[in-house]
C-alpha cells in the first residue's frame, strides 16, 4: 500500500511539477474509486457471510435488528456494483479515546482526558467536517474560475473546531465569529447550497447575495464579521442578552490569533468578567494573522492566558473530541453562573489567509504538508474509528460520495441561480419601515427601498 501511494505520488509530482502530498493522493484514489467497480454477485437470496459475526461488545447499545447482506468481492464478475456493508452488530457502537490534556489557566480542573464517542456521533462529525472541507475546496475552485469574487477566507484544516464546538452546544445557544466563517455558517444550520450561492452572489444565497463571504447569518448565528475583533464585544453583548433573558443560554464568541491583540477584546474581557456574562471566548490560533506569525505579533502567545482574570484552557484544535470536551466544560462553567471563560484552540489553516494569499511566503510547504499528514482532523477521526472497528472504509467512502454529490448539486445551483434583481438594490436599509425613496447615482435616479 505504501509503495503504491509512493508510486502515485511520484507520478503526480512528475506530471504537475509540484509535491503531491498524502492527502492529494488519497483524494485522487477516492475520486477514482467512483469508477472502480466492486464486483460481486448481486443476488440477495444467497448471502454469503464473509466471516462469523464477532461476540457482542461489552457495552452493546445497538438495538438495530436488521442484518445487512454481506457480500464478498470477487474480481471475476465485472459490471455489477453492489453496496458492501457489514452487519451493524459488527461495529463497535461506542468507544473511549484518550485525548490531549488541556493547559489550564486559573482553573483547578480541566476537561476530562478521555472522550466517549458513539458510532453515530463519529459518523456525524465525520460528515460535518468532510462537508465543510469539500465545500471550502469547491469555493477555492470557484474563486479561481472567478465565479466567486472579493474576499474568500477558507476554513479547511480547522474543521474540528467548528464541528467540535457545535457538538457541545445547543442550537438555542448563540455563536459569532469573524470572517473565516463558512464552516460555522454550515454548522449553525445554513445549507451548503445557500452558502455557495451567497459566495457567488446570487439571489438564492442566505443573504440574498447582499452580504457575501463575510456576512452570512442564521438564527442564533451572528455572522460573519469583517472588522477584525469587532465581533468580540458583540459576542459579549449577546451573552449579556442571554443573562438578561434568563434562558440558560451561552454565547460562543470566536476570534483569531490576529484579533487577540485588539484593545476592544480586553474591554470585553473586563466587562464580561465584571458582570459574569455567559460568554465563551474562543481564540482559533492558526499560528498566523494573515502573513504575520504569532511570534511576530504578540508579546505573549499564550492566548488562553490573555484574559488575565478570566480562566482559560488551551486545547488541541485538530482533535474534534478534544474540542468537544473542552467546549462542554466551558459551557458548563458559564451556565453555572461562573462568568466568562477563554479557550485557545490550536489549529491550522491549509489555505493562505484568503484566496489572494498563496500562503507560502511566510510559511513553508513542508510545514503545511506535515500538518496535513500528521494532524488532519478528518483523517484523525477516521483512523480512530477504523482502528476501533466503529465503521468501515466503504462506509466512509459512501459518505464521501454523498457529500461530493451534495456539493456538486449546490454548485450547480450556485452557478445557475440568477443574480439579485436590480429592483431590490435599495431594500433592507431599515427594518419594519414604510417604503422610502433612495437617491441613486444622479438626481433623476430615484430608487425605492422597502423593508
Amino acid at each position, binding site marked *: 500500500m505504501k509503495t503504491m501511494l509512493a508510486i502515485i505520488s511520484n507520478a503526480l509530482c512528475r506530471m504537475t511539477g509540484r509535491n503531491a502530498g498524502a492527502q492529494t493522493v488519497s483524494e485522487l484514489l477516492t475520486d477514482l474509486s467512483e469508477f472502480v467497480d466492486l464486483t460481486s454477485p448481486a443476488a440477495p437470496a444467497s448471502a454469503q457471510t464473509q466471516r462469523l459475526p464477532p461476540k457482542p461488545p461489552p457495552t452493546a447499545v445497538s438495538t438495530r435488528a436488521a442484518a445487512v447482506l454481506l457480500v464478498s468481492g470477487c474480481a471475476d464478475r465485472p459490471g455489477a456494483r453492489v453496496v458492501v456493508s457489514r452487519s451493524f452488530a459488527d461495529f463497535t457502537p461506542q468507544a473511549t479515546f484518550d485525548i490531549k490534556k488541556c493547559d489550564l489557566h486559573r482553573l483547578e480542573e480541566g476537561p476530562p482526558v478521555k472522550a466517549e464517542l458513539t458510532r453515530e456521533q463519529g459518523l456525524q462529525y465525520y460528515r460535518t467536517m468532510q462537508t465543510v472541507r469539500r465545500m471550502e475546496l469547491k469555493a477555492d475552485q470557484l474563486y479561481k474560475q472567478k465565479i466567486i469574487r472579493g474576499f474568500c477566507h477558507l476554513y479547511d484544516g480547522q474543521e474540528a473546531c467548528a464541528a467540535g464546538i457545535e457538538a457541545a452546544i445547543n442550537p438555542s445557544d*448563540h455563536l*459569532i465569529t469573524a470572517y473565516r466563517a463558512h464552516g460555522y455558517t454550515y454548522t449553525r444550520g445554513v445549507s451548503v447550497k445557500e452558502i455557495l450561492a451567497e459566495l457567488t452572489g446570487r439571489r438564492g444565497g*442566505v*443573504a*440574498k*447575495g*447582499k*452580504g457575501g463571504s463575510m*456576512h452570512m*447569518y*442564521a438564527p442564533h448565528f*451572528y*455572522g460573519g*464579521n*469583517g*472588522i477584525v475583533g*469587532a465581533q*468580540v*464585544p*458583540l*459576542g*459579549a*453583548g*449577546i*451573552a*449579556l*442578552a*442571554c443573562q*438578561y*433573558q434568563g434562558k440558560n443560554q451561552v*454565547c460562543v464568541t470566536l476570534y483569531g490569533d490576529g484579533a487577540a491583540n485588539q*484593545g*476592544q477584546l480586553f*474591554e*470585553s474581557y*473586563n*466587562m464580561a468578567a*465584571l*458582570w459574569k456574562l455567559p460568554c465563551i471566548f474562543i481564540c482559533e490560533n492558526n499560528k498566523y494573522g494573515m502573513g504575520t506569525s504569532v511570534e511576530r505579533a504578540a508579546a505573549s502567545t499564550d492566548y488562553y492566558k490573555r484574559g488575565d482574570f478570566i480562566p482559560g484552557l488551551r486545547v488541541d484544535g485538530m482533535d474534534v473530541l478534544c474540542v468537544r470536551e473542552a467546549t462542554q466544560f466551558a459551557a458548563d462553567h458559564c451556565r453555572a453562573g461562573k462568568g466568562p471563560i477563554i479557550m485557545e484552540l490550536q489549529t491550522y489553516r491549509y489555505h493562505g489567509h484568503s484566496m489572494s494569499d498563496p500562503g507560502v511566503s511566510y510559511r513553508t510547504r513542508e510545514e503545511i504538508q506535515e500538518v496535513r499528514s500528521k494532524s488532519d482532523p478528518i483523517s484523525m477521526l477516521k483512523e480512530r474509528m477504523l482502528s476501533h472497528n466503529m465503521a468501515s472504509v466503504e462506509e466512509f467512502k459512501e459518505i464521501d460520495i454523498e457529500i461530493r454529490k451534495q456539493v456538486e448539486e449546490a454548485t450547480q445551483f450556485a452557478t445557475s441561480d440568477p443574480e439579485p434583481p436590480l429592483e431590490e438594490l435599495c*431594500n*433592507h*436599509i*431599515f*427594518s*419594519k*419601515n414604510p417604503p*422610502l425613496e*433612495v437617491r441613486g447615482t444622479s*438626481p433623476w435616479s430615484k430608487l425605492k427601498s422597502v*423593508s
Partner: protein
Amino acid sequence: MAASLRCFLRSGKNTVSALQLRDFHRSAPAAVQMTVRDALNQAMDEELERDERVFLLGEEVAQYDGAYKVSRGLWKKYGDKRIIDTPISEMGFTGIAVGAAMAGLRPICEFMTFNFSMQAIDQIINSAAKTYYMSAGLQSVPIVFRGPNGASAGVAAQHSQCFAAWYGHCPGLKVVSPWNSEDAKGLLKSAIRDENPVVVLENELLYGVPFEMSEEAQSKDFTIPIGKAKIERQGNSITLVAHSRYVGHCLDAAAVLAKEGIECEVINLRTIRPMDVESIETSVMKTNHLVTVEGGWPQFGIGAEICARIMEGPAFNYLDSPVTRVTGVDIPMPYAKILEDHSLPQVKDIIFSVKKTLNI
C-alpha cells in the same frame, strides 16, 4: 423666568387665542413647563416601564444619576439589571450594546458626549447601521445611541465637535436632533420604539432650559415621527432651517427681524436623516429665500447637504438668491470665552445673513 417667557413667546402660540377655542367653563389647557433634561428622563422612564427589553447603559448612568443627570432616579427605580454603569470602554460597551440588540434586547447606549462616540464609531456604523442590509433583512439592530452633541461652554476643542454631518452621512442609521422638550421626549420615544439604529443628538446647553409641554406631549404614548420637520414659526419673507440649539437662535432672530417687517419662516429639522427636504422645499417655494443655520463646521455639513438637495429639486426655480449657510467657524473650538463666542453662530450673524440674502 426670562428663559421660560422667551420660550413661550418663541412657540408662536398665543394663550388668548388658545383659550378662546375652549368652553368658558373649562380651565385652560394643562400645559406645563418642563426642562429638556426632564423630558428625556420621562421618555426613558416611560419606555423602560412599557417594554422590559429596554435598558440603559453608559458611563455614570446608574448610581451617579447620569453625568448630566438625565437618567436621574432611573437606577433607583429599575435597578442594576436595567440601568448599567459601564467602565470607560466606549468601543467595548458600544459593541456589547449592539450585540445585545442583535440578540433581542432594546438597548439605549449613552455616550457621555458624542465626542467619545468616535472611539466606538466602527461599532455604530459597521456593526449596527449596515447589518440589516448586509443580512438582507435577517438581522435587525434596534438600538438607540444618545448623548450630548456639539459645543458646550468652555470645554474646548476635543469636547465640542458636532457629529450631525458624520452620522447623517451613513445609510442604515436614523439621526435625530431635538431642540425643545417636546422634541426631546417625542423623538427619544420614537427612537426607542424604532427597530433600527437611531442616533439621538442632544445638546448639553439645552438640558436645563424649560419649554412648554402641551397636554398631548405629557401623554405616555406621545411620539414624534422620525423624518418629519416642524414649522416653528410661519413667515413669508425668508425660510430659516436649523436643528437643535440654533432653532432657538433662529426664533430670536425672527423676533428681531419682525420689527423691521421681515417675517421669517423657521423650520426645526428635528430629523437629520432621513431629512425632510419636502418641508424645506414647500417653504422655499413660498418665501424664495433660504438660510440654513448649524453649529457644525461648514465643509460637508448639514447646510451643504440642504443646498445640494434644494438645487436638485423643484424649489431651485423659486430661489431669488443663492442659499446662505450660517455655520460654526472652520476651526477647532478655542477655549477663551471671547474666542468661543465668536466660533459659533450668534443671533446677530443670523440677522446679518438674512439681510444679505434678502439684499437689504
